[in-house]
């Protein structure tokens, strides 16, 4: 065990107050805008077939609406939270990880687009289970598809609800109005066992975000979702366009940024305990906190407190605290200078006041002199000499220091493959193999090339958008638009967040906060803190546009595929309408309740859902669209084999004592490739062994009456 006496404490929010107030305004304007949109969309529902309009926008989407709703739905919260976090953690290898986005738009829209739209028109389908059912006249097939969609997307909905709430919290947590609201919320849920461990701030944001999305989706239906997607799609591309030049200017250009990255050595992750010299006199949250010391050899060490710690009044210590210790000398030097500069800035003065107020500065006289001496050796920007109000108030005890499982002690891993992998990513069943192979071994690189472009094609929530465009000219133009749009977003994101390692070091344990943190750093760096609100609106928009689409797909599955087509086919339009509103409301509310205590590993759940849906839907849908010989047995078999083989790789991990969300690899390949391969084999083997489809169906979907 290593004990290090530390002095001085910074307590500051990721967002400056100015940015937080701007963010409140952004959120307010957003809220108004989406409700106006929902109201217009609701007016469109009048006088049209309710179901077709509510769930599919009457198949009348023009180019911009179709392109941007497709792009915004595909770019989920992961694009602006999980993806930047991965770039930050692993470096330039993420360019390869995401590289199949170069063909993503043409694959996901072009491979099935025209044909699925036509088949849906021929069969009068509104949902994907509708298409499967009608194409083979098999209600059972439709029900299986519906159950799989509800199963997978419900998980994802919870994950996205959490992502949205966390983002919103980051966005507004320093605003006074939010803090008082959060305090009130905390008092309301205090003592209720259901809310045990739930942070009041998160709960407030979940309620605001959840209720907003549920209401506008419920009220406006498909058109509300599409139009808000358009708004959100525009916000996303502007966000990236602003961030890229700001990043490049602040790291001194690409060359100097990449050269510094090449020198970077993965940090060490330390865990331990914080002891306070005096009990806190009021509840306090510690975050964005650095500890520095200079050892006997004159070597500087920097540790960053991971995540925030909320302490009640009267706390004398904080257990299970983790730190990131910077190892790269150039990084330490750079960050030390930055901390020094901040020390004399006005924000540092504010920080200092927070500390003294929070931990009981009135009793500083009782400080231990020996510890003060220790502090003299340790170093912190707010040193005792120049800031008499800041005295040694904490002692850090490190219990365990962990090295990265791949890349420890070695420079160059952030600019080359297979890239570093942190100890926190252990827990995989094949931990040793993974540690030896790094973040992206060749097999995983191949898997991810399949994962995005090919598995993206197999997502029913995107396919349903392909059923909504007006004509094939719209499809062609939309593919061009999305190709340009994604080129403007994804590669620049890799550049921005690779260099975020330089601007914001030590965030490995809270890399999912890197996007809002960068927004603040970049905008404050140029003296426009208010702009952060606008930048953070981009990921917020991404989450919102995904959540609303999922919500509608799930409720359409239940209302259309289960109730109307299987339980009560002759239900009146009025009944269906009420049921649609009610189902959307209920599904959204259930997801919201589960998101209060969401499962861990949300990003892994998102990957599990995406790859699982592809394994279930891609080849059955390809077969029914393009293979005349395809039949219900082959397609249903393919769907079930894809589902079970994908699931087995996750269950195998769990049976071996690993996490369910960290599947085993087979031949170095991930579940998406194995699931897709199994599904393809199943359709190719089962179809010829089972009866041919009826002539009538083949005729209907593959022929047109001859004009001669």
């Amino acid at each position, binding site marked *: 065990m290593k004990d290090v006496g530390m002095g001085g404490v910074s307590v500051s929010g990721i967002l400056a107050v100015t940015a937080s107030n701007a963010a409140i305004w952004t959120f307010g304007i957003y809220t108004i805008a989406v409700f106006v949109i929902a109201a217009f969309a609701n007016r469109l529902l009048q006088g049209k077939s309710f179901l077709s309009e509510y769930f599919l926008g009457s198949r009348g989407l023009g180019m911009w609406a179709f392109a941007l709703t497709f792009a915004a739905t595909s770019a989920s919260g992961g694009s602006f939270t999980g993806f930047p976090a991965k770039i930050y953690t692993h470096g*330039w290898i993420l360019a*390869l990880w995401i590289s199949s986005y170069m063909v993503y738009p043409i694959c996901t829209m072009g491979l099935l687009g025209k044909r699925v739209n036509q088949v849906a028109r021929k069969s*009068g389908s509104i949902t994907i289970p509708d298409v499967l059912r009608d194409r083979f006249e098999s209600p059972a097939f439709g029900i299986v598809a519906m159950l799989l969609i509800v199963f997978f997307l419900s998980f994802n909905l919870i994950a996205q609800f959490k992502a949205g709430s966390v983002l919103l919290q980051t966005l507004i947590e320093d605003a006074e109005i939010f803090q008082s609201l959060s305090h009130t919320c905390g008092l309301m849920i205090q003592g209720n066992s259901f809310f045990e461990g739930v942070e009041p701030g998160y709960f407030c944001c979940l309620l605001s975000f959840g209720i907003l999305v549920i209401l506008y989706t419920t009220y406006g239906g498909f058109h509300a979702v599409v139009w808000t997607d358009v708004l959100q799609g525009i916000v996303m591309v502007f966000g990236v366009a602003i961030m890229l030049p700001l990043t490049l200017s602040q790291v001194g250009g690409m060359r100097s940024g990449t050269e510094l990255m090449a020198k970077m050595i993965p940090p060490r992750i330390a865990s331990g305990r914080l002891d306070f010299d005096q009990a806190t006199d009021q509840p306090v949250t510690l975050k964005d906190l650095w500890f520095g010391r200079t050892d006997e050899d004159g070597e500087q060490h920097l540790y960053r407190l991971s995540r925030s710690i909320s302490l009640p009044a009267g706390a004398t210590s904080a257990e299970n605290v983790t730190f990131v210790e910077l190892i790269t000398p150039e990084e330490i030097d750079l960050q030390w200078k930055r901390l020094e500069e901040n020390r004399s800035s006005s924000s540092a003065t504010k920080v200092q006041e927070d500390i003294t107020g929070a931990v009981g500065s009135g009793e500083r006289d009782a400080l231990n002199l020996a510890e003060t001496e220790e502090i003299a050796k340790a170093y912190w920007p707010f040193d005792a000499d120049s800031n008499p109000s800041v005295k040694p108030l904490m002692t850090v005890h490190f219990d365990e220091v962990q090295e990265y499982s791949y890349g420890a002690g070695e420079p160059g891993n952030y600019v080359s493959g297979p890239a570093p992998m942190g100890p926190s990513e252990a827990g995989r069943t094949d931990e040793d193999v993974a540690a030896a192979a790094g973040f992206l071994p060749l097999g995983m690189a191949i898997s991810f090339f399949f994962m995005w472009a090919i598995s993206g094609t197999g997502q029913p929530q995107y396919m349903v958008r392909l059923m909504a465009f007006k004509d*094939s000219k719209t499809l062609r133009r939309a593919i*061009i638009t999305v190709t340009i749009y994604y080129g403007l977003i994804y590669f620049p994101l890799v550049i921005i967040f690779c260099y975020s390692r330089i601007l914001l070091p030590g965030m490995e344990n809270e890399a999912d906060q890197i996007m809002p943190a960068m927004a603040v750093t970049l905008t404050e760096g140029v003296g426009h803190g208010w702009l952060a609100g606008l930048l953070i609106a981009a990921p917020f928009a991404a989450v919102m546009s995904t959540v609303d689409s999922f919500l509608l797909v799930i409720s359409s599955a239940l209302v259309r595929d289960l109730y109307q087509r299987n339980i009560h086919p002759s239900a009146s339009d009025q009944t269906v309408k009420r049921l649609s509103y009610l189902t959307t409301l209920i599904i959204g509310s259930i997801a919201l309740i589960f998101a209060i205590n969401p499962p861990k590993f949300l990003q892994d759940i998102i990957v599990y859902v995406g790859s699982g849906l592809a394994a279930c839907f891609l080849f059955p849908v390809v077969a029914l669209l393009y293979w005349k010989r395809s039949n219900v047995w082959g397609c249903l078999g393919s769907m079930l084999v894809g589902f079970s083989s994908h699931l087995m790789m996750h269950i195998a991990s769990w049976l071996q004592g690993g996490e369910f969300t960290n599947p085993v690899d087979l031949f170095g390949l991930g579940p998406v490739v194995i699931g897709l391969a199994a599904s393809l084999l199943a359709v190719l083997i089962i179809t010829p062994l089972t009866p041919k489809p009826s002539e009538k169906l083949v005729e209907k979907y593959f022929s047109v009456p001859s004009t001669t």
Partner: protein
Amino acid sequence: MKSTEDPVYRHSKREAIAILLLWGASFLWTVPYCYEYGYRTAGEELELDLFWGLPSWVVWGVAVPWVVCGLVAIGMCAFYIQDDDLEPAESLSSEVNSSESSNSS
């Protein structure tokens, strides 16, 4: 009545094959190139080769192919993918009821 193969099906199939070829070409270039020039074995000395300030394997393995694939995709949409006559949207207003009745019958 005699029938002929649906042109939307025929065109879509041909276009899907071309798109798959594009995906295959991008895969066959990007993954092997990046693996060859962007990967190191543990302990191997790093030779940092920059182009436009980025690691050169990123430029030639990902950025340039990204631009090329984008241009090819745009070219395919402009000149190769055909405009087909999908079923007119106005006949769809009654589709829910018609599918219901076909289901119940």
